[in-house]
């Protein structure tokens, strides 16, 4: 039991892994191969579910090689009609040694009821060793009839053990070798070659023929061919063939061996060009993440936004916190643009900077592309594409999401902080004070110096107060200038802080958007890549 238990377990695990391979490889590997794999999984599932005590043996071969004669010779009954007309057999006949439990298997093989025969082992004492054998006589695969009939093909695929019935005329036919024997190389354990009609040759010729056949099979990759010379007419070699069959039947392993061989063969093709890198890092390393974030930040222009914020704020703050006298002086210089009749360009420039941050789609694309290019180095091409597609899967939304996300935090460039207004009020207060001082000075000069009349208030005639008033006016100007300079410094400092905060916040948000829209899909794909090749490895062994 231990002998049978081990391959069964191994086969089950491998088939389970193959199911995963089919699942994960969808859209990434050759669809034909995956279809084939699916078919194998289904076939294996069916076969393993059905009677493990029976061994399905197919007698296959070209028309006229004597499949039916051999079938009758082995079963000892005239069950399958033989004849000289070619092709003779059109429907598969089956003979069962030990009927119990075989019916579902025969149903699965789609053998018609009237073509099923049974040999109860009680009747044949010498055939006890064949108990559990289901012998099928297939139609040929090489006649003009077979061009439109795939029955032989189907049953050759489904059988546990295949006996190729060859004859001296046809043993080297391309139709047998190219389509089947070469394709089934590696199935040595579940293939027997019977050189039938040996009675037509002399013993020496039989030997020569067998040698030639062995050499031919060796060239085709059948390493240890089991070759038996038989003759359905004289009965020669039938015993040897029966012994070969009995060996496989009593071991009850042919079914597993067949499926294993099929699986091996499929895996050879599926794992034809395994990449050097079977396992990739399933998470994206910090350096790459940072690279992506940087690139996306560049795409929204975050450093430039920060700089612009700082500069624009600095410039605009002059209107509020600047020294009003300086602004008024500048206005006197005149504006050449007025002559261009462009309307209020300055106002327009002011309004245009009121816009928010926007991501540039092309640069977003490039950033994503660069990430996937870096990650997929050394991967097979379909997987390179699939990782790239995963990275791009949501990149259509990316520019918009970035824009929306960052618009929330980027303060409008024309924002005016409250203290700017306070500073402006203060500056105008100072201006008022200066104007008041000017008035006072005028009054003092008028009343005190030129004695223009009786001053309404005593102070206005007090010439001695004049220096003080003048001093106050100078101080007012000085205070205005100084507070403008101080405010300006505050603005710059605040803008610098604001810029730092903004850049940090933008970066944080860009990183989180990138995580959701790029990194996660890519990591899912990388995990899939790892799973696929892990499953492939498992199903190979």
């Amino acid at each position, binding site marked *: 039991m231990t002998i049978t238990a081990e391959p069964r377990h191994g086969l089950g695990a491998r088939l389970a892994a193959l199911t995963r391979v089919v699942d994960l490889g969808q859209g990434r590997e050759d669809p034909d191969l995956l279809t084939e794999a699916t078919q194998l999984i289904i076939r294996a599932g069916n076969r393993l579910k059905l009677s493990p005590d029976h061994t399905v043996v197919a007698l296959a071969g070209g*028309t006229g090689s004597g499949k039916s004669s051999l079938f009758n010779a082995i079963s000892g009954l005239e069950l399958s009609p033989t004849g000289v007309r070619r092709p003779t057999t059109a429907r598969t006949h089956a003979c069962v040694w030990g009927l119990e439990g075989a019916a579902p298997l025969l149903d699965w093989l789609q053998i018609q009821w009237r073509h099923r025969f049974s040999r109860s082992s009680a009747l044949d004492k010498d055939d006890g060793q064949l108990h559990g054998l289901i012998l099928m006589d297939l139609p040929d695969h090489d006649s003009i009839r077979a061009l439109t009939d795939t029955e032989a093909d189907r049953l050759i695929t489904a059988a546990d053990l295949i006996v190729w019935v060859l004859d001296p005329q046809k043993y080297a036919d391309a139709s047998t070798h190219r389509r089947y024997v070469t394709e089934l190389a590696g199935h040595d354990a579940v293939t027997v070659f019977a050189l039938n009609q040996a009675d037509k040759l002399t013993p020496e*010729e039989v030997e020569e023929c067998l040698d030639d056949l062995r050499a031919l099979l060796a060239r085709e990759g059948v390493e240890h061919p089991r070759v038996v010379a038989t003759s359905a007419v004289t009965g020669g070699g039938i015993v040897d063939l029966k012994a070969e069959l009995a060996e496989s039947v009593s071991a009850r392993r042919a079914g597993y061996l067949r499926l294993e061989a099929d699986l091996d063969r499929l895996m050879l093709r599926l794992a034809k060009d395994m990449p050097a890198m079977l396992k990739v890092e399933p998470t994206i390393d910090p350096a790459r993440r940072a690279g992506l974030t940087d690139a996306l930040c560049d795409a929204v222009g975050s450093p*430039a936004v920060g700089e612009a914020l700082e500069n624009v704020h600095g410039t605009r703050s002059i209107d509020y916190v600047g020294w009003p006298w300086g602004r008024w002086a500048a206005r006197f210089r005149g504006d050449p643009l007025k002559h261009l009749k462009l309307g209020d*360009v300055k106002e327009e420039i002011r309004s245009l900077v009121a816009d928010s941050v926007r991501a540039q*789609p092309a640069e977003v694309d*490039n950033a994503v592309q660069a990430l996937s290019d870096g990650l997929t180095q050394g991967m097979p091409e379909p997987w390179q594409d699939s990782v790239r597609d995963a990275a791009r899967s949501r990149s259509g939304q990316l520019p918009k999401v970035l824009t929306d996300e960052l618009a929330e935090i980027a303060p409008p460039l024309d924002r005016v902080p409250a203290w700017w207004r306070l500073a402006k009020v203060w500056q105008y207060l100072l201006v008022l004070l200066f104007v008041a001082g000017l008035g006072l000075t005028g009054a003092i000069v008028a009343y005190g110096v030129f004695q223009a009349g009786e001053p309404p208030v005593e102070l206005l005639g007090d010439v001695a107060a004049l220096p003080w008033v003048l001093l106050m006016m100078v101080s007012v100007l000085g205070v205005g200038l100084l507070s403008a300079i101080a405010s300006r410094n505050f603005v710059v400092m605040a803008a610098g802080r604001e810029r730092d905060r903004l850049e940090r916040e933008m970066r944080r948000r860009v990183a989180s958007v990138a995580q959701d829209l790029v990194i996660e899909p890519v990591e899912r794909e990388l995990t899939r890549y790892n799973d696929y090749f892990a499953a492939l490895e498992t199903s190979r062994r």
Partner: protein
Amino acid sequence: MKAANQTPRSEPADEAVMPEEEPESPGEQTLSFRAIKEDEAPPDADISDEPDPSDELASADNLDPSDELDPSDELDSADEPDSADDLDSADDLDSFDDLDSFDAPEEEFDLPEQVSGALTEALSQLREAVTGLHLGLDVPGADEARKSQAAVLAQLDDYVIPRVHMSTAPALIVVAGSTGAGKSTLVNTLAAQTVSATGVRRPTTGTPVLVCNPADEGWFKKGTLLSGLERVEEPGEGPGSGSIVVASTKWLPHGVALLDTPDIDSVVEEHHDIAHRMLDAADLWVFVTSASRYADAPSWGLLKLAKERGARLVIVLSRVPARSREVVSKHFTRMLDEYGLGEVERFIINETTVTNGRLPDEEVADLRMWLSELSVDEQRRALAVQATLNGVLNSFRARVPALARHLETQVALRADLRSDIDAAFSGALAEIEESTRDGSLLRGEVLARWQDFAGSGDLMRTLQIRKAKNHGPERIGALRGALRSGLESVISTAVHRASEEVVTRWRQRAGAGDRLAALPGLGRPEDDIDRRTARMVASWQDHVTELVRTEGVTKRSVARLVSFDVESLALIFTVGLLGYGTGDAPGGNGALPQRLLRGLLGAESLRSISGKARSDLRARIGLLFDDETLRYVDALDGAGIPDEAAATRLYQATYNLEVAR
């Protein structure tokens, strides 16, 4: 010397036959011979009579000269048993006599039918057209087409061109069929000596073996027919696709040669090709199959081919077990009837023991008779040869246009693949045009830099350069850099997408397309694309600055008041050009840069510079794309360019051939 071995074997046969024929008078013998032929041939009678086809001729010539010829022939046959060696040479002499007597009428028969110059011309034209055919793309069916091309060419060289230039004799009878059907055995038996190896190993024959009357040997060795094959004495190792063994035997009648071919269905696939090449050169096909093989698909494939070619066909069903002869032959006949080949002449050979690679002679009596009839009856032979030749020429009617049609598919596919490249890249170009027009480029850094530039007052300052010398060059540089990298990324994204699209489109084209698409590196642009794009964009920017400098003649009224920094103005111009204020770009409330520029430069001048700058950009991108497309075109050309005129030449050649016939 082979003949020396031969004679003792035929000795008993001769003795057995002679007594039957001896009693008749020499003059009547020809008549009796004729009678025998029409009925069932008496067993073994043919071997002794075979070297005397002149009898037949004589009989055709109203018997008179036969009186003279007959005694000598009789003498020959009678003497043979006594001294083999001497008589061998006598036999040879006899054969040459035969040759002489044959040659004269043959020439007379064939010369009137001499080939017209037009036909020769048409054939060489056809040959040229087929040779010149280059089927480079692996579309579905390309392999078949290439095979068919090679086959047509080989048939023209091996058969058609030599055949139309010469008489109908000797006729080449090609024996073909499945492996193990007994082709070599049949040929050996008919030749009455082992010319082709037989055995139980399958496949047995690898090198074709031609066997003919010694009189014809020289002609076949000269190699007008099958001129591409090397004549050898012994078959070499393995399948000999380039050689043919030529052997002679006097037991074969004059004017017909048998060619034993490799099989059509064994594991050695080269054999199939050789067999088909031999069949292409055949005047008559002898198709050999066996009782266990007559339903095989490859055999019927060959019969189908014979039917299509209109070749003169004879079917031999060999290895028929005596007890099932009736059933098998009936069944086979019915199958042939159903297939429309019921009229074809058939011979049945029983399954018997093969000794020394030969069947008992009585098994092939019918066939031998048929051969000798063919040998002596020129008219019949000529008809057969003509029929096959006509069949071949008729087959060109379908085969050559089929080649032409395939070529046309190739040409069409190539055009499709080419248009895929163009579509992908013109799509990319349109994409770039769009995004350099609708303002979508003015996002991200470009936008921020522009805002920085405009909002910080530099924009105004550059326009008042007389007063503000200290405008921030770093800000202008940053805007310029941002514009450049924005343009670069738009272009490089477009190029990447275009490369991918070409490959995707190619993958959807069956056959050649996906194979081409699998070429490494085609899915992405060349490595230095970024560098070239950067250079291209930078030079375009320089060009724009230059344009603004030279063409942007400032309005006179403005020039008096404002002077400006060209560098900055070029940037403002670029921002405006890229669609600032259009579409979803910011500043939708009137495109400031345009208005500013219009004010500064005048509408006329602005329009002209814009047009020039845009077309210059398009031209530069076009150049860049040309370099990229070149790789795909190279890949396409590497696969082989089908010549479009070749199809026309093929049709023309086919037509000319029809006219010449």
